């Protein structure tokens, strides 16, 4: 049913792309370089988070300033659930059936990991539902931005001050379920799939209608408030998934969450293009690569290395001045475009061949 309408070429291309992505993930996690594992992991997780934010900012057309808070919520939920599960089942059992001797995961381990992040995502989604009802159900206009900002500030400060929820040092992760690029890659594919099909359904259509014109949407029978709350809940759920994935990777600290993260995600989305999922993924790649690779090179001027965020300001100003719609605007990657490119290239080559003799004459 799912792939009934896809033509064969696109279906095969999609499958090949997914396999290639996952193979790449496996290659990286089997490699020796911790830096590259970290870079790829963070790109994948940030892509998911940016997609989540883009659902609200690009597709629904409302501004949300607190998605970092949802990531933190997903993170905290995942850690608490994982710790609880481990305490319930017992460390001995984990040693025998969950971990491999090399520190990887047995099939049961993958099952526990997957359920953990999915449950955490759902909890975050429920929380997003409540925030959505408060911010969107009654209020109009820019209130969503302000309410989400407020909620995320509350959340960051609570977790900072209650040791059981993280405290200033963050929760000490002794539940490491070996989050790995492969898992992140799979979850990115799942997220893209969920968002694409959601947007193709009557619910996504209502979302886009609300973005373009609330009053007209209402006049066409769309329950605008309900539709907005649903979309926001969906976005929070995906953001929670990203946060939960963060929890299982040793190299990340919860300190990295907070208002800076919300802003960083917003910059990623604006840079990629509001409404373009492809753009969000590309720009997540650029920003993470810049932070984790570029800024750690020895040949990079000291100034950049110690003030990496200066580039964010530059990006915002440059984008607004020269390309306010972001790198991709609202354009999306499609196989038709991809293969069209090949055709164009071929035509150009043939033309060039034909034209060269003329020039000789």
């Amino acid at each position, binding site marked *: *049913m799912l792939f009934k309408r896809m033509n064969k070429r696109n279906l095969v291309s999609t499958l090949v792309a997914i396999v290639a992505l996952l193979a790449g993930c496996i290659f990286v996690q089997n490699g020796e370089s911790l830096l590259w594992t970290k870079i790829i992991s963070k790109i994948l997780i940030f892509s998911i988070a940016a997609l989540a934010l883009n659902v609200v900012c690009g597709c629904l057309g409302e501004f949300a300033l607190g998605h970092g808070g949802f990531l933190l919520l997903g993170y905290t939920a995942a850690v608490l659930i994982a710790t609880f599960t481990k305490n319930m089942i017992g460390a001995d059992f984990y040693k025998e059936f969950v971990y491999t001797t090399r520190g990887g995961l047995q099939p049961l381990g993958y099952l526990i990991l997957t359920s953990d992040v999915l449950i955490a995502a759902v909890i975050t989604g429920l929380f997003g539902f409540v925030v959505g009802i408060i911010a969107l159900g009654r209020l109009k206009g820019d209130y969503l931005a302000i309410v989400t900002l407020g909620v995320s500030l509350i959340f960051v400060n609570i977790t900072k001050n209650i040791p059981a929820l993280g405290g200033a040092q963050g929760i000490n992760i002794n539940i490491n379920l070996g989050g790995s690029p492969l898992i992140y890659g799979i979850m990115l594919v799942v997220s893209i799939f969920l968002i694409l*099909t959601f947007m193709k359904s*009557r619910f996504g259509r209502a979302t886009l209608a609300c973005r*373009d*014109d609330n009053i007209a949407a*209402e*006049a*066409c*029978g769309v329950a605008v408030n309900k539709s907005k709350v649903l979309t926001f809940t969906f976005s929070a759920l995906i953001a929670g998934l990203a946060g939960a994935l963060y929890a299982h990777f040793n190299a990340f600290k919860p300190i990295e969450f907070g208002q800076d993260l919300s802003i960083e995600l917003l910059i990623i989305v604006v840079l990629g293009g509001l409404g373009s999922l492809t753009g969000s993924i590309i720009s997540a790649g650029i920003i993470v690569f810049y932070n984790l690779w570029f800024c750690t090179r020895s040949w990079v001027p000291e100034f950049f290395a110690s003030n990496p965020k200066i580039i964010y300001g530059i990006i915002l100003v440059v984008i607004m001045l020269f390309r306010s719609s972001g790198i991709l605007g609202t354009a999306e990657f499609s196989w038709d475009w991809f293969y069209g490119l090949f055709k164009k290239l071929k035509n150009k080559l043939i033309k060039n061949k034909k034209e060269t003799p003329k020039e000789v004459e």
Partner: protein
Amino acid sequence: MSKVALKANNISIVFGGLRAVEDFSIEIKEGELVGLIGPNGAGKTTVFNMLTGVYIPTSGTIELRGVDVTKMSAHNRVKMGISRTFQNIRLFKRMSVLENVKVSSNINMNYSIFDGIFKTKKYYEQEDKATAEAMEILEVLGLSEYVNEQAQNLPYGKQRKLEIARALASHPSILCLDEPAAGMNPIETEELMETIKIVREKFNTAVLLIEHDMKLVMGICEWIKVISFGKEIATGTPDEIKNNKEVITAYLGE
């Protein structure tokens, strides 16, 4: 005797002291083509806004096919069989022509979010039906060649027609058109009036038409209501309206 599609009983609305519409009543039977005319600022659009649920009248009641909808929200009223177009075009600019129309099909679909995400049989059945219906409507309005075009890229006259197409997709029993010919040249206007007649026959709906230009409505409406300064000043057939003294005064000014 055909049934009543829309009935308004003495609806009034006050905006901060301004009585924009006062004691307005109307009864439209299924399939009728009715005109609502009046000078600038008479309160025509305000009447539409009350009928469709954008504003709740200060007093009076509104019924759709015999059901009291006075307090019902705008989106629920669409399900009761009323739909409208806007005086200032309000399309979903960045959506395709087809998707614009399909937004209104939402109320005829009931597949769940899981059907949507996993594209079940139900999803395809309902989406396909909506697409087929939308294509049919677009065909009648002469928009077939623009199906995949973004709404904002359509020429002005076509945008007006797309608004009508979108309003038809929710299967209205009463279609309210707010100055659909505004900004069109005489030839386009003529053509639009023909289209409205065809639409009414084909989609089996009553039409309530606001038009600024009196001559225009005279041609196609069965009967006409005239308002001025928020109050009704005349109701009757085009001929009766044409010769009504009060109407002439209202239009020519005192």
